[in-house]
């Protein structure tokens, strides 16, 4: 039972995750591996049918803290990374904290800027910073008008089923964020007709798995959502919120948290609590980044490629 080396497989994956910068994560048969970034990586994925999308997260536009006085500048650097992708991604997914504390004009700034990166559409889910002041009114009017629920959504793209979940709309004192009954029931109905062989990508702001509950880095009823996805052969869960890359594999489900484009946060349990971490200015961009996720039909493979802004 005990591991003499004191390093189990999960620990090993996390250790690898901390090395972060410049690694390409590939998911082959549910097991992540990595290789160094290098020239010709687009071709390396082969298959003309391959396509990709981008995850951007925690842009925190309006943040002016010491950890990054120029969150707009680093956001623009992230946009440049997306624009430079070749081949172009099909779309962008923003996993929330679009704004920093709903600063005036920030939603406009981000949504307009993302229209200029050369993709047809950006899909959003909110972070707590996007809804805390008005209970989500502005966010929902802007990004979820006409939807049946409160911002949750699903869509299909070339055989992959995407589900966007909202876990920041019912924060209560002393409690963890949750999805809530209505959304869970919707999710159950949404995935019910799908064949188990359908690849599923789930995206939400706060991690759906227990990264560090003491800091609120978990979704209270996330396990219930994951139970509805258990029967699928390939599930990729993309989250933000914690401003750092972490991975975990559980059965057919692969969890990934993303970097922010604004500021880093501490590793779980390190220091006095979560929040912006000020690092030497020359190190900052190495801790920020964007993510490209590539899908190659027939290869049972989602390649998750994290690129820093350094």
């Amino acid at each position, binding site marked *: 039972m005990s591991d003499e080396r004191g390093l189990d497989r999960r620990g090993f994956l996390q250790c690898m995750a901390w090395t972060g910068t410049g690694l390409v994560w590939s998911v082959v048969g549910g097991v992540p591996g990595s290789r160094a970034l290098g020239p010709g990586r687009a071709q390396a994925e082969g298959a003309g049918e391959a396509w990709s999308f981008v995850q951007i997260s925690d842009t925190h536009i309006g943040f002016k803290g010491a950890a990054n006085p120029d969150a707009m500048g680093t956001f623009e650097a992230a946009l440049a990374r997306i624009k430079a992708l070749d081949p172009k991604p099909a779309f962008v997914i923003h996993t929330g904290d679009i704004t920093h504390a709903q600063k005036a004009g920030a939603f406009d700034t981000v949504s307009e800027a993302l229209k200029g990166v050369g993709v047809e559409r950006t899909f959003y889910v909110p972070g707590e910073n996007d809804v805390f002041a008005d209970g989500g009114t502005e966010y929902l009017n802007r990004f979820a008008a006409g939807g049946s629920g409160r911002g949750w959504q699903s869509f299909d793209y070339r055989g992959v089923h995407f589900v966007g979940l909202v876990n920041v709309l019912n924060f209560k004192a002393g409690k963890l964020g949750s999805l809530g009954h209505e959304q869970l029931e919707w999710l159950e109905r949404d995935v019910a007709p799908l064949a188990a062989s359908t690849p599923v990508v789930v995206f939400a702001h706060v991690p759906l798995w227990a990264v560090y509950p003491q800091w*609120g880095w978990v979704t209270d009823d996330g396990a219930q959502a994951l139970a509805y996805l258990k029967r699928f052969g390939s599930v990729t869960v993309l989250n933000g919120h914690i401003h750092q890359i972490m991975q975990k594999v559980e059965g057919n489900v692969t969890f990934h948290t993303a970097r922010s484009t604004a500021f880093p946060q501490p590793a779980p349990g390190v220091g006095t609590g979560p*929040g912006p971490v000020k690092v030497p200015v020359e190190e900052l961009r190495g801790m920020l980044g964007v993510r490209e996720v590539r899908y190659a039909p027939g290869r049972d493979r989602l390649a998750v490629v994290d690129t820093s802004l350094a």
Partner: protein
Amino acid sequence: MRALLVMAALLLAGPAAAPAQTESARVEIRDQGFNAPSVTVKAGTTVTWVNHDDDTHTVTSTVDTFRSPGLDPNETFSYTFTKPGTYEYFCTLHPLMTGKVVVTPERSGS
């Protein structure tokens, strides 16, 4: 907890000779927490919260009695408690940050 209560008491402004006239108190927000999770004050006291974090926080009553805007670094929020009672509050951005203000009658027996 007791130490924090004492600390909160020490933060109370006003001359020590006239304890009944206490009018203001401060709660520091630091390291994703309220430094005095429970503060006891007399009715009529103005409590001021000061955000020393690099992140934004709020001071929000659990029953909507008071609600600060997002407090950026070094910003403050004040609220005057006129009625005795227990007022629980939290940060709507970081709901694990909680605190309460216990307001006692201005003068005993009044």
